[in-house]
């Protein structure tokens, strides 16, 4: 069995995309049945029949004219929001599907690490699955036998290797899948967000293994939502959005763009029409030097500037300020509750909002600002679904995967003092102290 496609030439790039397009035909439900195919076919031959009333096929372009080259030994992260074409890219690279037009060249033995364990059969033992999965990945039986012990040791499933994998925990499942894939010695390793699963210590181990493969000169393509993973593993990032390549460069620079663009144009909307008199023109996050930024360190003060334009003098308005993560509101503040009277606003101005000690967990956050009239009618509304991301400082690296930007599920990081006390022998008493 052969996974290599094309020929290995010293000078040729490991991966080459040239004007690649991929079209999916979206059939609206019914047309998937043979019946509709047949009735459509009959209608087409019948000149008196209605013209293909059931033809509900729609084009969807998952990739639109995407071109890039990846050189051997490069480690590249492909990032983009859902529906940006990441998975399609991966499927084309893995040879699972074909591009509609354009040219794709893959030079070198490809190892795909896509949803590890996809080839496992639940009724078979771990041992049997290692051989099965290995051969699906293109390994020879003798080769698998030689690496068997190392695979099992890496996956830490020695005790359960003869148990059917249906009894495995999801962590064991993933560990075994990953272990098999990395033992396949690929020249080009495709990785699809595997680090998102498994426990922390194993994530570390996978990550170290990928670093090891990288330092031994393998080409790595990591497809991920997480800019943090890409920044720490890749020296180059390619960003896709709605099927198009919109950024290609150093991860830091692309990260900036990702946060700005991740389905996140700002939405400014006016309420009450032109006679509302006041509108928000921009909202910005500032760094310590007062420049606009899209990243802030956990625990540091957050400073926002809200630019407004009062086309005529307005009195007694109040500003509401919210931080969101996805659909969840994380933080609320407004000028009235805090007893601030803005008086009469005229012309252009800036309202600064400083949040001194809100320790948000590393993740991506959105901002909403609303101006209300004195009787609490909304006058202007600005929404930035992904305005900035919080990253963890060095001394808190163990959060998440231990990577700077790794998204964390929690919302607020609580500083707490932890102390170990000696329990009194008489009666149990729970003593703790929290700041």
């Amino acid at each position, binding site marked *: *069995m*052969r*996974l290599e496609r094309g020929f290995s030439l010293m000078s040729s790039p490991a991966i080459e995309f040239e004007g690649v397009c991929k079209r*999916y035909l979206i059939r609206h439900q019914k047309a*998937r*049945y*043979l*019946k509709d*195919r047949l009735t459509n076919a009959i209608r087409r031959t019948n000149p008196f029949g209605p013209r293909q009333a059931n033809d509900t096929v729609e084009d969807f372009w998952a990739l639109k004219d995407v071109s890039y080259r990846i050189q051997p030994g490069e480690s590249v992260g492909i990032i983009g929001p859902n529906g940006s074409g990441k998975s399609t890219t991966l*499927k084309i690279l*893995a*040879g*699972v*599907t*074909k591009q509609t037009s354009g040219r794709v060249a893959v030079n070198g033995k490809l190892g*795909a690490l*896509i*949803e590890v364990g*996809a*080839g496992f*059969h639940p*009724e*078979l033992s771990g041992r*049997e699955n290692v*051989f*099965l999965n290995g*051969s*699906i*990945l*293109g390994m*020879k*039986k003798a080769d698998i036998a030689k690496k068997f012990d190392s695979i099992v040791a890496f996956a830490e499933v020695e005790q359960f290797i003869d148990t*059917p994998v249906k009894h495995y925990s999801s962590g064991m499942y993933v560990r075994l899948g990953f272990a098999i894939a990395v033992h396949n010695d690929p020249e080009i390793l495709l990785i699809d967000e595997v680090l998102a699963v498994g426990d922390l210590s194993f994530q570390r181990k996978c990550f170290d293994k990928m670093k090891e493969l990288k330092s031994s000169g393998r080409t790595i393509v990591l497809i991920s939502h997480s800019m943090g993973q890409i920044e720490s593993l890749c020296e180059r990032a390619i960003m896709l959005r709605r099927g198009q390549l919109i950024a290609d460069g150093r991860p830091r620079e692309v990260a900036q763009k990702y946060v700005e663009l991740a389905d996140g144009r700002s939405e400014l909307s006016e309420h009450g029409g032109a006679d509302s008199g006041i509108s928000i023109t921009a909202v910005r996050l500032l760094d310590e030097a007062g420049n606009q930024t899209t990243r802030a360190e956990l625990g540091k003060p957050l400073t926002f500037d809200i630019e407004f334009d009062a086309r005529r003098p307005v009195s007694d308005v109040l500003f509401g300020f919210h931080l969101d993560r996805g659909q969840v509101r994380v933080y609320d503040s407004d000028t009235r509750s805090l007893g601030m009277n803005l008086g009469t606003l005229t012309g252009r101005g800036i309202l600064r909002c400083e949040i001194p000690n809100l320790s948000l967990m590393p993740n991506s956050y959105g901002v909403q600002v609303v101006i209300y009239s004195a009787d609490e009618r909304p006058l202007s509304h600005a929404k930035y679904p992904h305005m900035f991301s919080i990253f963890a400082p060095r001394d808190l690296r163990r959060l998440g995967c231990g990577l700077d930007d790794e998204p964390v599920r929690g919302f607020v990081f609580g500083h707490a003092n932890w102390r170990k006390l000696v329990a009194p022998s008489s009666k149990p008493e729970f003593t703790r102290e929290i700041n």
Partner: protein
Amino acid sequence: MQAGLLTELSKLPEYRELIVNFTLREIKAKYKQAFLGVTWALIQPLVLMGMLTVVFSYFAKVPSDGVPYPLFLFAALLPWQYFASALNRATGSLVNQAALITKIYFPRESLVLASLVAALVDFAIIGIVYVALLVYYQFAPTLTWLWVIPIFLIQTVFTLGLMLYLAPLNAMYRDVGQAIPLAIQVWMYATPIMYPASLVPAAIRPFYFLNPMAVIIESYRSAMLRNETPNLAFLAGAAALALLALFSGYHVFKRLETRIADVA
């Protein structure tokens, strides 16, 4: 871009291990948690044989070419079950592996071939029972039995050809999966399995033998039970159809192959 069938066949040894592993998976997984294990491969046809013998031989008194009905029945039923189980397995072979197909590249033919091999393994197991039956009825093989080899080859080529159609078509249209068990049942009655071909009225016999499975099954009976050379004209026709099925099936498979991951 589309490699020919012959060059593709020459690559078979390369992914032999994959086919073996897929086959092992199918067989092992099927019997793993069953207390009786592989015995089930014997129980099913034996029960069927007992049932059909009672109904057709004892109740309905269907003639059986002058040999004991179980022998008569099994000579046709076993190859038929090999055919039917191969088609059934092939129908699900790609669809059931959608998780794998949409994520990893490997030669997709290997899944279809593994279905064929798995059906062959069941066939081989029950074949032992047939040998036991022959010993029990003291039925000695003759030289005409050698015809079984080419007949079996023709049957296998025909079966594989149909499998190559069914696997990707079911991935595109699930109607295929619904229709196949029914079609197999209808086909079974259109083939001389429970009754001898001699019961078919002479007027429709030329049409009856347009069915390649009727030719194949009847040929097994000629060679094994009646010590006759099979009707070579019919057999040649069946062979031609089998080759046509294989080449066109392979063509269809290769054409649909890359689209499977998009629709599965």
